């Protein structure tokens, strides 16, 4: 009986560790684009995985694990706002991002793009991150964000449109882009 229980526990532990290893990167990045803050993202990811551990038995389909974790993380993030309603301006959010003094061109461009992504309204950036980074379809995103698919598609359109415009206005970037 006890051996069986500890066996189940061991299996649960293995599942959990596999889940952490496979998905913590995606989840952290998703948290980062949601909060624009490294420390908060780390806390959110920790809280998410702790909750995931407690509810691990309810996860039947491993393929659904990522969206399951994202759902938990979004809920945790919403809770964070209920707890303390601190407001951050978009400009401040952008300035929190990493600035590396010695960077390659690629890093300079990434940094510049990150600022642009961070400056998008959250309702545009969230589906965009889910689509590009998460690889989710419009339907999946609509389900996860509890929106209808047309709304999601419109937001994706606006998100890319704004980013494209920003890029086209950026002389250095455009030079690189065309060259």
């Amino acid at each position: 009986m006890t051996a069986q229980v500890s066996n189940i526990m061991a299996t649960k532990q293995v599942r959990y560790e596999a889940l952490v290893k496979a998905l913590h990167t995606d989840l952290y990045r998703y948290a980062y684009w949601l909060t624009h803050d490294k420390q908060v993202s780390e806390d959110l990811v920790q809280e998410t995985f702790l909750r995931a551990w407690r509810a691990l038995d309810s996860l039947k389909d491993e393929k659904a694990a990522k969206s399951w974790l994202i759902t938990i993380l979004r809920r945790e993030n919403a809770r964070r706002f209920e707890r303390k309603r601190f407001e951050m301006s978009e400009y401040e959010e952008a300035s929190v991002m990493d600035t590396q003094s010695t960077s390659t061109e690629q890093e300079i461009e990434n940094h510049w793009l990150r600022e642009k992504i961070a400056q998008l309204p959250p309702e545009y950036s969230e589906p965009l991150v889910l689509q590009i980074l998460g690889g989710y379809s419009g339907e999946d995103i609509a389900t996860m964000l509890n929106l209808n698919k047309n709304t999601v598609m419109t937001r994706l359109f606006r998100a890319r449109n704004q980013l494209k415009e920003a890029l086209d206005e950026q002389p250095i970037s455009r030079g690189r882009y065309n060259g």
Partner: protein
Amino acid sequence: MDDLQFRRKIYADPNGKDEDLLAALQADPAKQDFANELNKLDDRLREAMKVSVPDGLSEKLILRQTFASHQQKKRKSRVHLALAASVAIIAGLAVNYLQFSSSYSNLGDYALAHVYHEQDLFSNSDNAQVSLTRLNQKMSTFDGSFKQSMGELISADYCRFDGMKSLHLVYKGITDTVTVFVVPNRDDIDFRDSFNDSKLHGEAIGFKHANVIVVADKNESLTKWQRAINNNISWST
């Protein structure tokens, strides 16, 4: 599909597999170029979105979970400890209850059982050992004394008579020993003045301070013993 629709669709999902979108792309190389351009944009955005993850985050996550469930286990074992303690207390109470409470509902049954239990310890051929003085020393516990000896007393000892400290006297009888118990009065046990089974019979006399119970085989006249006790015994208060 007009240009506006195309733009909306391709911007919303440059990788879209929508049939209309695929047909529009097929028909127009300029649209294909545009789709490619947007796909390149997506690649760059993807790279930009891949912010670096803190070192050792996965180890930290596993460690925190281990601590969390360890604490949970500790809480559980504390519960187990509390349960074990409760069981021990209840077991203690039960032993106490069984040992010091009456398992027989009346004096007679208990007296018979007690006599049968100890019948091998005494024999009618044992020599008398206990003097009247020693008997009365023991009787003083019950605030009583005997004026003179009622016969040859083989043994006089305190015993537990159904959980009560009592005096157990064994006299030499006609064919077998005669047992006399001096038992404190108690309410919760049914007083019965006479009782018997196939071999033994007994009678109890209720005094103010104690009950005196005589148990002997059926060759013995209980009336004689009762009279002897009545005449002999006196109570100090």
